[in-house]
C-alpha cells in the first residue's frame, strides 16, 4: 500500500538522486544503487525485452561502474569541463506492487549546457521509471529506465547521468 509516508520517502529519494546526478556527485550517486541495478535508455519507447534491443545505454551494475570510473578519470573529454546542468522532475506517481520493491514514475526535463564544445543549451525531456528496494532500512535504486521524448530521432552526446 502506498502511504503518505512512503510517498514522502520516495519523493525525497528521487529529488536527492536527481541532485546528485546534476552535480556529478558520482560516488554518492553510485551508493544509491543496488548490486543488481539496471540502467536503460532505449532508442524508442520503454517496451519489449531490453536485452534484445540496441539502446543508447543498457548498463548492468558492472557497466555503470565503468561509466562512473570513466567520468572520474578526469580525462573524459566529453565531460571536460562537466556539463552545467539542472533537472526538474515532476508528475511523480508511486506504487507498491507488493513484490518487495516500490515503483515510481516521473516526468523530467534536463537543461544541459554543452560547455565542452558548442556551448549549446541542450534540453532533454522525458519519462522515467524507477524501481526502489529497501536495503538495510534505506531505499536503494534497482532500476532506472528512461524514455526520451526524442528517443526516435537521435541524440547529442549523452555522457552525464540521465
Amino acid at each position, binding site marked *: 500500500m502506498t502511504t503518505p509516508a512512503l510517498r514522502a520517502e520516495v519523493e525525497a529519494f528521487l529529488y536527492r538522486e536527481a541532485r546528485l546526478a546534476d552535480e556529478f556527485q558520482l560516488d554518492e550517486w553510485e551508493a544509491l544503487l543496488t548490486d543488481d541495478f539496471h540502467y536503460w*535508455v532505449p*532508442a*524508442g519507447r520503454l517496451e519489449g525485452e531490453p*536485452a*534484445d*534491443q*540496441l*539502446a*543508447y*545505454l*543498457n548498463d548492468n551494475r558492472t*557497466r555503470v561502474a*565503468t*561509466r562512473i*570510473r*570513466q*567520468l*572520474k*578519470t*578526469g*580525462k*573524459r*573529454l*566529453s565531460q571536460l569541463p562537466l556539463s552545467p546542468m539542472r533537472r526538474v522532475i515532476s508528475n511523480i506517481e508511486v506504487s507498491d506492487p507488493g513484490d518487495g520493491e516500490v515503483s515510481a514514475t516521473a516526468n523530467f526535463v534536463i537543461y544541459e549546457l*554543452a560547455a*565542452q*564544445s*558548442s556551448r*549549446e543549451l541542450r534540453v532533454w525531456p522525458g519519462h522515467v521509471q524507477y524501481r526502489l528496494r529497501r536495503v538495510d532500512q534505506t531505499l536503494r535504486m534497482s532500476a532506472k529506465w528512461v524514455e526520451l521524448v526524442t528517443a*526516435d*530521432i*537521435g*541524440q*547529442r*552526446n*549523452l*555522457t552525464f547521468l*540521465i
Partner: protein
Amino acid sequence: MAIDYGQLVQGDRIHASLLHDPEAFAEEMEEIFFRGWAFVGHESEIKSQGDWVTRHLGNESVIMVREYDDSVNVLANRCAHRGTALCWEHRGNSSFFQCTYHNWRFGLDGALRTVPFPDGYSKPKEELGLDRAGQIEIHRGFVFANLDGTAGALSEHLGAAGYQLIDRLCELSPTGRIDLSKGWIAHRVQSNWKLWPESDSDGYHVGFVHASMSASTDTHYDEVAVGGDAVSSSRAVDYGKGHLELDWRPSYQTELSWLGVNRDKVKGYCEALTARVGSESAEQMLWDGPPHAFLFPNLFLGELVVAIVEPVGPGEMIHRHTSVQFEGVEEGFNQRLLRQTEAAVGPASFITSDDAVTAERIQAGVSGTRRSWAEENRGWIDLSRGLHREQVDEAGTRSSDASDETTNRGFWHRYLEIMSRRVSM
C-alpha cells in the same frame, strides 16, 4: 568565385575552410552523394516484400524498399505531384506508398498507380513516377545506390579492396551472412561530415582522445592502437578510391581479442565457424577479427558496428550506427554484440562520444577560416604525419604505421579526385 579544390586540398595539408564552407557543402552533396555511389542500407533490414526503411543520401531523403519480385528499390521519398514526403517513420511495411496531400498512390517500384478524379489528367501516368536511384548494386546484402545513374559500375567505385573488406566482415559469421536489422541509432554531432571518415580511420588519436576509456576498462584498443609504433604493429592503409583501413591484425596478442572474450565463452560460435570454413581458416579469422575500415563516402565498417556518415549541413551531421548480428550463433552471442556496440559507439558510449566532442571542437576551431586565406598561408590543417615512411605496394595500396595520417590523406585524395571534376559554372 568557383572553389579551387586543387588549391585547397594538397598532398600533405588541406584548407580548414572546406570544413564549414556552405558552398563546398552544397557541391559535395551534388558531386559525391548525387553523382557518386553511396551506401544506403542492408538487405536484412527489408526481409519481406513491402518492407521499407527511410535513409538519407546526402540531403536527399530516400526509401529503400523490397519489391514484390524481391528486388530492392531506392526511391525518392517525395511525391511526384507536389513534393510531399511519403514516409514519416524510419521503417514500415506497405503494399504501396500513398501521399497524404491528394492521395496519389505509387507502387513499390515507384510507378504511379492511381490518382483521385483521374479525368483531370491528360498526361500519361508513366511520366509521373517517383524519382529513383539510377543504379543500385548489392554486395553480400550491402545496398549501394547512385542517384543520378552515371557513376559507372559499383566495382569501379569499390575496387577489389572494398569488396574484400565487406567480405572479411561477413565471413566471420558462421553462415557467411550478417544481419543489420536491430535498428539504427543516430548520434547528432555539431560538425562537418568529413571529420568522421577521418576520425573513424585515424589511429593517431586513440591514446589521447580515448585515454579515459583505457584508464577505466580493458579493451583491445590498448593492444592495437595505444602507444603508437613503439608498441603496436598495426597499419594505416589507403587502398585507393577513399577506402581506408586501420589494420589491427598484426597487433593482436590473443585470438578473439576483438570480441573481448576467451574461446570457452563463445564455443558454439567458434565451432560453427570452423564447421563452415575449416579449422585452419577459422583459427586465422578468430585471431584477425573484423576490419576497422571506411568505404568512401559514407560507410564505416567499425569491427562489430556498421555506421553511416550522414551530412546534414556544413556544421551538422549524424553518425548513424547499428550492431552487426551474426547468423547461426548460440543464444546470447548476438546480445553480447549489442552490449559491445553500446559500449563503443553512440551518444552514451565510452568511445565515440569523445570523438564527437573532438569533432565539435574542431568545428569551433575552423569556423572562422576563410577560403581566401589559403594564399596567405593561414587556416591550413596538417596531414603530413608519416609521409616519409609510407610504403606503396604493386597494387598501389599505401600503408604506414597506424598512427600515421595515410588514411586521412587517402580520404582527401579521393575527395579531390571527385570534386576537381566539377566544371566551373
